[in-house]
């Protein structure tokens, strides 16, 4: 009963967030300076003829009132139709589906590698002052250095100088290694910083002593008991990381000459391609809503104390 209400409420909230995100992007693009028909027809380089301008305005409905445009926009959104890209003349859905896979591959790989490395480092160094100190230095560097800068340096060293990993081409994993590492470094750094903190707090708590007293080995203590104990803060961190990943993806796609949602979005914003911008924004909002839904659900599962609080 309790869970069902929680789920229903989250569903409504999710829909609200998605509507809000779509509306925000619609409004933002209305606020951009300049006439969108001019940008579409002229590309910023020439001034189109009056006839061309009118034709473009008619095609995209710019001659209608803002309210009509917004309602049309919402109506199509409801049907899951984002319209056709102004620039590419293709359905936004197909652009998104072709680009999302590339970004997801990049983001998922970076997140998994980052999380695994972060957890491993935290497990290995928690409660060991010297190792923890060294790890902490590296972690701080990893979270404090701009991603594009790490990417450029890695690229320069491992691709151009040492020829270890190609930048381009469809060689699958080998061309993904460097972008993954770039994306994974800050994820690993922040995961490890958070986990070690939690673990070190847990290690001095009575339960750790009890477990040790029962003769459980140190490695078992760490991998079983501590890991469970640190789950809630890591969950919190994970939804934060998902938000950060998208930002990372935008920059890394640029550095590593990869296609994907980030590149698509940057170009669409520059070209006033409202349908594409909305498509990307709504897509990201859906992912965000889903991730938070899962994370909060997991919270309820791992941390019974939260069940009593309103969601």
């Amino acid at each position, binding site marked *: 009963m309790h869970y069902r209400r929680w789920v229903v409420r989250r569903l409504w909230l999710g829909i609200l967030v998605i509507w*809000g995100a779509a509306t925000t992007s619609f409004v933002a693009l209305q606020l951009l300076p300049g006439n969108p028909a001019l940008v579409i027809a002229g590309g910023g380089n020439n001034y189109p003829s009056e006839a061309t301008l009118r034709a473009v305005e008619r095609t995209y409905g710019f001659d209608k009132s803002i309210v009509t445009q917004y309602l049309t926009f919402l109506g199509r959104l409801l049907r899951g139709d984002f319209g056709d890209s102004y620039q590419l003349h293709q359905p936004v859905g197909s652009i998104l589906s072709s680009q999302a896979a590339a970004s997801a591959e990049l983001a998922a790989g970076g997140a998994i590698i980052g999380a695994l490395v972060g957890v491993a480092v935290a497990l290995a160094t928690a409660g060991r002052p010297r190792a923890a100190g060294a790890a902490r230095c590296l972690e701080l560097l990893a979270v404090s250095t701009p991603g594009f800068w790490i990417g450029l340096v890695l690229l320069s060293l491992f691709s151009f100088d040492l020829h270890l990993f190609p930048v381009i081409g469809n060689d699958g994993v080998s061309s993904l290694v460097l972008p993954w590492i770039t994306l994974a470094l800050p994820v690993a750094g922040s995961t490890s910083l958070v986990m070690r903190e939690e673990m070190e707090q847990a290690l001095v708590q009575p339960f750790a002593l009890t477990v040790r007293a029962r003769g459980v080995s140190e490695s078992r203590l760490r991998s079983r008991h501590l890991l469970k104990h640190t789950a809630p803060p890591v969950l919190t961190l994970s939804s934060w990381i998902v938000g950060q990943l998208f930002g990372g993806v935008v*920059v890394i796609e640029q550095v590593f000459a990869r296609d994907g949602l980030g590149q698509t979005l940057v170009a669409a914003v520059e070209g006033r391609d409202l349908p594409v911008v909305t498509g990307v*924004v709504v897509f990201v909002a859906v992912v965000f809503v889903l991730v938070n839904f899962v994370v909060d659900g997991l919270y309820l599962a791992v941390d019974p104390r939260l069940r009593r609080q309103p969601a």
Partner: protein
Amino acid sequence: MSTLDITHEPDPGRAASGLLVTGNLRARRPSVVAAALLLALLAVAAVWPSAFASHPNQPDLGAAFRGPSPTHLLGTDQLGRDTFARLVHGTRTSLLIGLGGTALAAAGGALWGLVAALGGRIADEVTMRIADILMAFPSLLLALVVVSVLGPGQENVLLAIGLSLMPIFARIVRIQAKVVASSLYVSSARGLGVSPLRIVVGHVLPNVGPSVLVIATMNVGGAIIAGASLSFLGLGGSASSPDWGSMLAETRGYLQADWWLPVAPGLAITLTVVALSVVGRAMQQRAKGSGR
């Protein structure tokens, strides 16, 4: 792309503390002192750059791409300008984007959070749903859209970063304000007919302040990185005064031939953000110590 901001927050203190340097404060004192010193130096450079170097924009075309030397500590750039002078003079802009963006977010977010916490059920629902919507935009995406609307330029970058971090502060302040407001002494003050404004100023703000400060300190670094990322994407705007992000973005093409050019601003960003994390964490430890 702030790396240190904390968004999703059932328990603000928890994830926040985790991102900070762990361990005993006393044991880490040398690093805290070093970090604080570095920040103090940066503050002086930001306020009074001419104390360290002058003429950051003076080209000397005959002396472009010189390596580090006694006359040019960090060498010269593609127009023969002194890299050290540019770095020093860039401190102001870079710190301004970081501090200004965060301050904007903290101030706006605090107000937002207070309205949500104390303005009644409807205000709470509406403002928090707006925060949800804004937080569904990854901060860089939001900043990207804001900069597109307002145009590139340092002020707009500052505004974009401030806006993208605002919901984080709003959420934290809201939770803390609610806790304070429901506490016994506040409800008794209310019972005594003390005006809501006085309750906020006298009881809520002093309690919320420290955690806002801590979260802010930790977000400054992220804001600096976000500013640099926008510069990298070509949205930083070319201003008359140098900033680390644009210096890095402009010189990245010389990484292989004249590596010290992009390395200098890159290191400046990294060291500053590290120092901010170390100091922020120490502050948080202290806040925790005195709070508990």
